[in-house]
C-alpha cells in the first residue's frame, strides 16, 4: 500500500484539538486523583479501623471494576439514580480522578510505610504532633519514593482517557476514529494517533525525570 501523507496532514488540526482535550482531562483528573489518593493513602496507612476501612472499601471498589464501567456508571447511571446531569467532559474528569485516586492511594501508602520507622520515632521524640512528623519528616522522604510509581500511574491514566470514546468525549482517540470513519485511511490515522500519544507520554516521562533529578534521591 502507499502511505498517504496528505491524509495525515489533513487530520492534524482535529488531532491537535483531541490531544488538547486529552491533556486537559488527564491534568484535571490527576490533580484530583493525587489529592484523593493522598488522603485515602494516609487514611490507610495511619487511620484507625473505621477510617482505614472506608479507604479500603473505596480502593477495592475502584480497583475491582474496569474504568469503562466506572465512566458509564457516572455518565449514564448516576443521572437516573440521583438526578444529577453530568456533561461528558466532567464525567471523564471525575472518572480519572476517582480511578487514579484509588491506585495513587496504594502508591502513597506504600511510600509512607516504607520509610524507616526510626524517623517517625525521632520526630515524635522531639515532641512533635503526629501530623507535623508526617508533613516535615516522613512526607519529604516518602515523596521521593513516590515519583517512579506515580509516573507509571500518570501514564496509565493519560492512556485511559482514550476509553472515554464510549461517552463521546472528543479526545484524541475519538478524533482519530471520526477521521477514519470519513476517509478510511486506517494506517495513516492510527499511526498519527499513536505518535501523538507517544509524544504526550514522552513529555510526561521527561518532566518526571527532571523532577527526580532535581531532588536528592534517598
Amino acid at each position, binding site marked *: 500500500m502507499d502511505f498517504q501523507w496528505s491524509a495525515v496532514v489533513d487530520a492534524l488540526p482535529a488531532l491537535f484539538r483531541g490531544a488538547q482535550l486529552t491533556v486537559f482531562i488527564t491534568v484535571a483528573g490527576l490533580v484530583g486523583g493525587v489529592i484523593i489518593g493522598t488522603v485515602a493513602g494516609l487514611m490507610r496507612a495511619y487511620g484507625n479501623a473505621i477510617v482505614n476501612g472506608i479507604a479500603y472499601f473505596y480502593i477495592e471498589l475502584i480497583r475491582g471494576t474496569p474504568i469503562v464501567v466506572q465512566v458509564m456508571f457516572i455518565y449514564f447511571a448516576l443521572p437516573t439514580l440521583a438526578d444529577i446531569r453530568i456533561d461528558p467532559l466532567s464525567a471523564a474528569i471525575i472518572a480519572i480522578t476517582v480511578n487514579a485516586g484509588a491506585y495513587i492511594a496504594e502508591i502513597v501508602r506504600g511510600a509512607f510505610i516504607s520509610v*524507616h520507622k*526510626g*524517623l517517625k*520515632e*525521632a*520526630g*515524635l*521524640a*522531639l*515532641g*512533635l*504532633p503526629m501530623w*507535623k512528623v508526617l508533613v*516535615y*519528616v516522613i512526607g*519529604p*522522604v516518602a515523596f*521521593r519514593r513516590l515519583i517512579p510509581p506515580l509516573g507509571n500511574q500518570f501514564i496509565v491514566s493519560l492512556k485511559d482517557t482514550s476509553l472515554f470514546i464510549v461517552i463521546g468525549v472528543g479526545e484524541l482517540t475519538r478524533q482519530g476514529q471520526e477521521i477514519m470513519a470519513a476517509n478510511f485511511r486506517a494506517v495513516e490515522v492510527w499511526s498519527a494517533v499513536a505518535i501523538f500519544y507517544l509524544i504526550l507520554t514522552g513529555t510526561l516521562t521527561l518532566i518526571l525525570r527532571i523532577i527526580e533529578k532535581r531532588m*536528592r534521591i*534517598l
Partner: protein
Amino acid sequence: MSIVEFANVTKRFGSLVVLDQIDLNIESGEVVVVIGPSGSGKSTLLRCINVLEEIDGGDLVVDGISVRSGSKNVRLIRQEAGMVFQQFNLFPQMTALDNVAFGPQHVRGLSRTEARDAARDLLAKVGLAERTHHYPSELSGGQQQRVAIARALAVKPKLVLFDEPTSALDPELRHEVLRVMQVLAEEGMTMIVVTHEMSFARRVGSRLIFMEDGKIAMDGTPAELLDRAENPRLREFLQHVQ
C-alpha cells in the same frame, strides 16, 4: 521530686512480659547507666519514659507528668526527655544544621534564624562546626551520632535518654561520641544511658542498674556493682561484654 518515677510499671509485648512491676526513681543530675543481657528490657525501660512504648500497668511520671495523661501531655514529656537512638535516625533530607534547628523551630516556636544560630552553637559544641551543611549521608557514623545528640539537646530537655548510642559504630568512632556524652554529664545533664560501654559506666555514671528478665536485678554505684559483682549473673554478663 524525682524527674522520673516508675511505680509498679509493667509492659508486655503480647504474652511476653518485658517490664515486670518496675519501681525506680531517678533524680535530676543523675547519670544512670543501664546494662543487662539483650531482651532484659533495658531499651523498653527507656522507651516507656518518652512514651515511644505505652505502659500496660502501674504509673510512670516524668517531670511531674504521667505518661498516661493524654497525647498533649505526652508531647510535653517528650520535649523534656530528649532521645538519642542506636541508629541515629537523622532526617536524611535535611543538613546537619537543619536537623538540629528543626526541633527548636517546630517544638519551641523559635524563629528560623534563632533556631539556626542555636543549632550552629550546638554543632560547634559537639565538634562539628565544619560539617553544618553536610547531609547525614555525607557524615560518618560517629559524626551522625554527634549531630543526633545536638538535635536532642536543641530542644533544651531536662533529661536525655541514650539507647545504645555507640552500638552501631565502629570501635574507633565510639570514643568521639562517648567524649561528647561525658562533657554533657559533667555539665550536670540528667542522663539515662543504655549501653555496653563498661569503662564509660565506671568513669561517667553516677549510678548503675543491672536488668534481667524485665526486672531491676541490681542498683547501685558503678564501683559497688562492678568491683564486687556478687550477683553471679552480673559477673557472667560482665565477662561477656568485656
